[in-house]
């Protein structure tokens, strides 16, 4: 057990879907579930960290206060943060720092979103200074454009096939079948994935995750506080939220170009490897210690990239893992036992928290129908726009 560990006392989620209600409702439902799971009352919470949503007006930009008000003003301290797909993990990290600094004993972390239909569009208005706006105007480059560039790169470099990508969806759909919080609970076949319409070649509609409504919440506490409420709690052993290191030579959303590697050599560890690497270093653990992983399968092919980024195999070997069934529940190192984004769709500020919720249920042995036997150490990994990423290591 590390000196910087904090305890996960409670977790809760509002089921993912396309419910069309106000995001605050999902966040409050998830928060109440997390509090009940922790055996605590709202009045016990000293600190609230909210993960922001940028598509729901002002209340979304100040999520910590929004959720506090919805649960009932009680004079607790708050923080709100936005970090694209890593927003949930950054909110978790803020709460952890408050606890480890001794400013509070117990905190609530909440993220929730209500999403529009179809492609994620940039925030409205005429904004030619914003690369996220400009990429749509000048290039017609959507998020799937970037996912497809990475997928095609795997095909060109490592001989990945569309069957390999489809196999990831088949696996995750099967994993998600028994998950009550998953939006899609239906088996799919390789043929169904491959015959779904092409969105951005080589990716088909079923290779790409949808956008969803949903909410997730975590009650975090000091290890001391946890000992008074429970025995052997799941603990957070690391939270990594590192940025890329110059020069970042892989093109990232929403950019038009990479950094230049003409004058400074690229770092030894690329950005997505570095996200997990920093978490392993902080936890004093390595890929060999893992029992499972929850990674950000924005596309099926991206899940294969993550196998390498979090060190499950060497670069170019991920296809072998999916072909051999290594990453299926029951296999050597199950990935996305929750069903992943393939079964959930993405609810941005809630998603990194949902990953930690799943690891918590898995480590407690409560992941009915998708349980990884004897799970004791798990890692999450995610990445979003503008150099954001996160990795959380949960251990027991």
């Amino acid at each position, binding site marked *: 057990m590390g000196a910087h560990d904090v305890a996960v006392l409670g977790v809760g989620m509002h089921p993912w879907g396309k419910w069309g209600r106000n995001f605050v409702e999902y966040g409050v439902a998830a928060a109440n579930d997390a509090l009940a799971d922790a055996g605590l009352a709202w009045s016990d919470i000293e600190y609230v960290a909210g993960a922001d949503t940028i598509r729901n007006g002002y209340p979304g930009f100040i999520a910590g206060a929004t959720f506090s008000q919805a649960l009932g003003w009680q004079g607790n301290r708050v923080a709100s943060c936005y970090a694209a797909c890593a927003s949930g993990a950054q909110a978790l990290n803020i709460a952890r720092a408050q606890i480890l600094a001794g400013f509070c004993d117990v905190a609530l972390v909440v993220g929730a979103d209500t999403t529009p239909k179809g492609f994620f569009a940039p925030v409205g208005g005429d904004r030619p200074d914003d690369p996220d706006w400009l990429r749509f105007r000048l290039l017609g480059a959507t998020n799937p454009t970037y996912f497809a560039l990475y997928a095609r790169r795997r095909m*060109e470099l490592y001989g990945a096939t569309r069957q390999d990508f489809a196999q990831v969806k088949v696996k995750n759909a099967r994993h998600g079948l028994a998950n009550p919080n998953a939006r899609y609970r239906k088996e799919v076949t390789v043929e169904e994935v491959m015959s779904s319409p092409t969105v951005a070649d080589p990716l088909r509609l079923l290779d790409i995750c949808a956008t969803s409504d949903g909410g997730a919440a975590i009650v975090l506490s000091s290890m001391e506080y946890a000992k008074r409420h429970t025995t052997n709690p799941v603990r957070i052993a690391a939270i990594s939220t590192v940025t890329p290191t*110059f020069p970042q030579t892989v093109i990232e959303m929403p*950019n038009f170009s990479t950094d230049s590697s*003409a004058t400074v050599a690229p770092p030894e560890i690329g950005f997505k490897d570095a996200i997990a690497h920093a978490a392993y270093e902080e936890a004093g653990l390595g890929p060999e210690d893992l029992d499972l992983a929850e990674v950000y399968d924005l596309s099926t092919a991206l899940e294969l990239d993550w196998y390498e980024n979090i060190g499950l195999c060497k670069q170019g070997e991920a296809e072998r893992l999916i072909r051999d069934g290594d990453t299926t529940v029951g296999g050597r190192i199950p990935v996305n036992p929750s069903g992943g984004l393939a079964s959930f769709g993405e609810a941005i500020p809630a998603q990194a928290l949902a990953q930690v919720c799943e690891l918590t249920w898995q480590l407690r042995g409560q992941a009915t129908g998708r349980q990884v036997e004897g799970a004791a150490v798990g890692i999450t990994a995610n990445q979003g726009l503008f150099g954001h990423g996160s990795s959380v290591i949960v251990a027991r």
Partner: protein
Amino acid sequence: MTKTQVPAIEGWFTTDPERPALLGTRCTGCGTYAFPRASAFCANPACPSTTFDEVELSRTGTVWSFTNSCYEPPPPYISPTGEFEPYTLAAVELANEGIVVLGQLAGDTTVDDLAAGTPVELVIDTLYEDDEHEYLVWKWKVVD
């Protein structure tokens, strides 16, 4: 009446009909290239420079990866003809700058015409039009 041709964005590329080029910058302190241009700070964390020379970037490069777009993107995307037609995109490693730049492919190039390493060159093409103007953007074209 011919429409006036104008860049869809000012200062990102030249519109020389023979040899168009992307306009980037080269840092006067460390030599780092940037596209789009650097104006106030250098991307190199070890470099305090705040001055940058405008440079034309390599007009040629090789394909890093590629894809297409089969569904109409949301605004601010504007369809060139008003009716959506799928288009092809490539991320291209410029010949000399150590930069990968994304762009659409000119003409009717499809993903079947491309591979990692395919040589391409920069051209200027119409992005979209209104009643008076033809708005221009850079695109990649496979070198014959």
